[in-house]
Structure formats: structure tokens, C-alpha cells
């Protein structure tokens, strides 16, 4: 409906109507944006089954505690992932201005950006080869590696109550 109105006003070109036309375009853009968000939300509300459990109602389903002291140990793996993310985030930041002036700069800009991307891709190859994309780097069979300490504690009779469960976890 609104699209039709915009197209009808196309042939009339003077300054005031062209301004309206520009705003009309933005209006349609906003409208479609709202529809695209609202319709799937509505659809899933109608279609999806709802079985609420305590887990599902918590803020983060992945198991992070929402409340508690701030001095908790974060797994170092989060930082590795964050660092990798930053590399490629910065890459995109550089790509936007490059894309804007790409036509004017031509081949030179292309070559330059490919070198830049190549070096960044080398970074990806590096983290891949070093195994930093694996969430679990290597698995240790029970009784070996980091679980070895546990068996030693069980063998020594002198220490009556070591808390082996905690070390194992």
C-alpha cells in the first residue's frame, strides 16, 4: 500500500516532494523493520509450545550464575575467544571505510586490503593450528594427567580426608 504511494509520486520531481519521497523511503524502511521483528515474535508465540522450568526461566541458560560475588574465576578460554573476536571485529571496522572509497582508489586499494586480510587470515590460521578454536583442548583419561594427583592422595594413608571430588571437578 505505502509502496504504491511512493512509486506514484516518482514522476513529480521538485524539491519539496523529493524531500517527502526521501522520508517516505525511510518510513518504509522503519515499517518493514518493525514487521520483520514483530511477525516472527508473534509467530513463535502462537506456534511454539511452552513448558517452563526453573532452568529455562533463568537469565542465562548456559549455566552462568546471575547473582553472586564478582570475584569469580573466569575460565581463561573466554579471554582467548574474546581476543580472537576482537581481531576480526577490528578487521570489519577497517573494511567499512575501505568499501566506501573502493571505487575511487581502484586496484591499489584492492591489493592493499588483500594484504591486510591475508595477514589477518594468517592470524586465524595460527589460532586454528595452535588449537585455540577447540573449546576442550585435550582430554585426559581418568587417573592420568591432571587426575594423577587425585589417585596419589587416595593412596597415602596419612591424609584422612582429602577432598578429592573438588579437585576432580
Amino acid at each position, binding site marked *: 500500500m505505502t509502496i504504491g504511494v511512493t512509486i506514484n509520486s516518482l514522476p513529480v520531481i521538485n524539491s519539496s516532494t523529493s524531500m517527502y519521497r526521501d522520508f517516505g523511503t525511510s518510513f518504509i524502511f522503519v515499517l518493514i523493520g518493525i514487521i520483520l521483528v514483530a511477525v516472527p515474535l508473534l509467530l513463535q508465540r502462537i506456534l511454539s509450545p511452552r513448558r517452563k522450568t526453573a532452568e529455562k526461566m533463568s537469565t542465562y541458560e548456559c549455566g552462568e550464575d546471575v547473582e553472586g560475588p564478582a570475584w569469580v574465576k573466569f575460565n581463561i578460554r573466554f579471554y582467548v575467544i574474546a581476543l580472537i573476536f576482537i581481531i576480526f571485529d577490528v578487521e570489519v571496522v577497517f573494511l567499512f571505510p575501505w568499501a566506501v572509497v573502493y571505487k575511487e582508489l581502484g586496484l*591499489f586499494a584492492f591489493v592493499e586490503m588483500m594484504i591486510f586480510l591475508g*595477514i589477518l587470515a*594468517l592470524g586465524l*590460521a*595460527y589460532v586454528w*593450528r595452535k588449537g585455540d578454536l577447540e573449546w576442550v583442548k585435550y582430554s585426559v583419561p581418568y587417573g592420568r594427567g591432571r587426575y594423577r594427583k587425585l589417585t596419589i592422595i587416595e593412596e597415602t594413608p596419612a591424609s584422612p580426608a582429602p577432598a578429592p571430588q573438588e579437585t576432580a571437578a
Partner: protein
Amino acid sequence: MGNIQSISYFLPELMVIATVVVALIADLVYSDRNSYKVGYLVIAGLVVASFTLWLSLPEETTPIFLNTIVVDPFSRIFKFVFLLATFIVVLMSMNSDELKGVRTGEYYTLMAAMVLGMSLMASSVDLIMVYLSIEIVSIISFILAGYLRAQVRSNEAALKYVIYGAFSSGLMLYGLSLLYGLTGTTKLFQLSGSISSLGPGSNLTLTVSTILMLAGFGYKVAIVPFHFWTPDVYEGAPTPVTAYLSVAPKAAGFALLIRFFNTLFGTGQPLNSPVWQAMEGVPWQDILMVLAAVTMTVGNLVAIQQKNIKRLLAYSSIAHAGYILMGVPVLSQEGVYAIVFYIIVYLFMQLGAFSLAIVVSNRYGTEIIEEYSGIGWKSPYLGFFMAVFMFSLTGIPPTAGFIGKMYLFAALINGGSQFYWLAIIGVLNSVISLYYYMRVVKVMYFQGGREKDLYVPGGMSAAIVLAMAIPSIYFGVRWSFLADWVNSSLKFFIAGF
């Protein structure tokens, strides 16, 4: 000059960057056992970079990359120093037992990347570039210091280094921001103009900013109030890394210090007139003089008590930073000449002493000075050259260290009567240093049994020791070649943009 035209002036650094990329790819391909071969690639890359640098015009003085860095004879000679130091240290690392059994591909790659950072340090003329280049060098140093992940003391070294580094770079950043706040520009040459037109009202701010920036520079070159990381890091880091840290980043720090203070606070034409006037109002000359005196004295006095050879050389490197720093406040061409000359001489003797420490540790498994007893008889090769380096570090006449010290003191004496006290303290410190350097020689020759196993280290180690020892003696006898080269390199980029 714009970015695209600048590239042709940036070729040596581009070669280093290419080396880093190639070494990184090679390290991904090699297995753990073959990872050390990356070192050969890095050596080849450094040779190519040196060659490119050699081919570049020696008299060229141009600001490049939108006036953030400059190409000039002063940075050129320092780039040679960095390339040479890295070249030697890579060779030393290949012959070090400490690094055997560790995957070393990344290690060599990082060293190549450090050359880039140091070259930028020696040539940056923009506050942001100054900070960035210092950070490149620092962060790589942290990783290198902690490279032996399985060793607790290597980890400790890296952690201490990071904490001190973060703190001092924070202080320096604050100093830089004060400077920017006063003048509204980050370019050194515009800063110099703006500062002289500021008037006496901002002298206090300028002084505070100078002290804060000195914290950053002083941390890099290990001058005294900012030296606390040095012994622990030098002791804990793998010995080749210690050798590297005590020479190359120190040289880069001094290059930056000289350029920074001479451009910023010297009025007139830096390095083109024999003596030029310091800016009135900011007592930075006095600050540097006091720091130099304190640095020498603390370094030498604490070195006397050291039992570990690496710690001894660490404190000796602090003392040498003090000697070198004496030349900065003189503000004359002679002073800068003496500094550059001394840095080159210091490179040979310090790397030589460390390469011998590595050989001894490989062969006799010790870093404790007392356990060096009898080495002079067991292995005359090691004993003789260790004595040469110790004599040279002390500054005893037929060695290069003497000529270096002589130029420094001459610059001070010719600089004017306000520098006499500093020269006297410097001479007294040389006397103190004689004690602990000679103690090493004494332990090697006059203590312990005199059994002979006539050990001569294997090919490459022996060659490195020899390659360091020959200049240490030769430049003490005939130094005109080096003197001419240094003299022709004392040209900053000075004109405005």
C-alpha cells in the same frame, strides 16, 4: 609525505615484516621437532633487511607516513644496531641448552617482530607513534621473558615485567597527555615550537609531564627509580633473552630518549651546532644528571653483592645505562656521539659476556659465580674471553669499553663546569665496577682446582664469542672506522613539516 610514497623509504622495515609473516607461516607448517628451523628463516630475513638498509641512502632525511616517523641517519645507525643484536641473539638462542626441547618457532618470529618495534622507536616523531612503538617492544619482551612456560622463575619474570611495564606505560601516557593538553599537537616538532611559546606559567606542568614521561623511557632503559624489574626479569628469563633485553630495547630506549628530549626541550638546531641551549624553566637537565648519577651508583654498588652471573650482568647493565645517560643532558653533538659510540661498543661486550654465560651454563651447568672456579684453567678459551669482556665492561685501556667511556667523560668535561661533578662520580663508579668484574676473573683463575679439560665450545658458540671479542679489543686499538661512521650518522630530521 603520504602513505603510498612513504613505502619506498620503509623497505628495510617491510623486509622485517615479510620475515615475520613468512616465519609465522613456516612455524605453522613445521612439526615440534623442526620448529627451530624458523630461526634460519629469521636470520635470512634479517640479512636481507640489513642489506636493504645498507642500500638505502645514508643521508636521506625525510618524514614519512603522514609525518609520524622519520628516516634519518640517526635512526639508520640504530636500525643497524637492532638488526645486528637480533642476528647475534638468534644465533645464541640456537646454541642454548635452555631452549632445547621447547618449541622455538614463535620465539624467533617474535624476535623479528621486535626489530620492527625498535626501528619504529628509533624513528618516531609523533607522541602516538612513540607510545605504540614502545608498547610493541614491551609486549614482545613480556612474552620472551616468560618463554620457558614450564619454569616457575621464567613465569615470575614475565609477570613482574608485565606489572611494572603496565604501570610505567600508564605513567608515561599520562605525561604524554599533559603535553598534548598544553600544546594541542602530537607532532614532536610542532610541540617544540608550542612549548617555547608557552610562557613560565606552565613550567610546573611541563616538569611533571617530563618526570612522568621519564618513567616510561626510564623503564625501557632501566634507569634507577624504574629499575626494580631488571634483576628478577634478567635472572628468570632464558639467558639469550636476557642478553637481548639488556642490549637491544635499551638502545632503542636511548634513541627515543635522545630524539625526544633534544627535539622537545633543546632550542636552536639539534645536532647541527656543537652546543645548543636548553630551554629555560624546565629543570630536565638536572633531573637527568641526578638520575644518571644515582643509576650508576646503585647499579654498581648492588652488583658487588650478586652471586648469580645473570644478576651481576643485570646490575652491570643498569650501571651502564647510567653511564650512557650521562651523555644526554650535555646537549651537545659530542654527547650524542659518545652515547651512540658507547651503545655500539656495549652491544659487543655485553652480548659477548652473555654468550659466554650460556656456554658455561651449557657445559658446566651453573650460573653461580663461585662455581666458575677454575674455569680459566679448565677451559682457557672461555676464561680468556670472559676476562676480555670483563676488562672491556670495566673500561680498562686496551679494550673498546675504555674508548667508549673516554668519549663520554670527554663530552661531559667539554660540556661545561656544571657537568664536572657527574664526570667525577662516573670515574669513581668505574673504580667500583672494577671490583666485581675482576671478582669473576679472580674466581675463574685463582680459585678451585687447576685440572685441564681444555674445553673449546662447539663451532657456532665459539664463533659468536670470537665475533664479539674481536670488536671489543679492536675498537679499543683502532676505532677510527667506527668513529667516522657514528660521526656521519649524527643527523636528526630537524626541519618543520
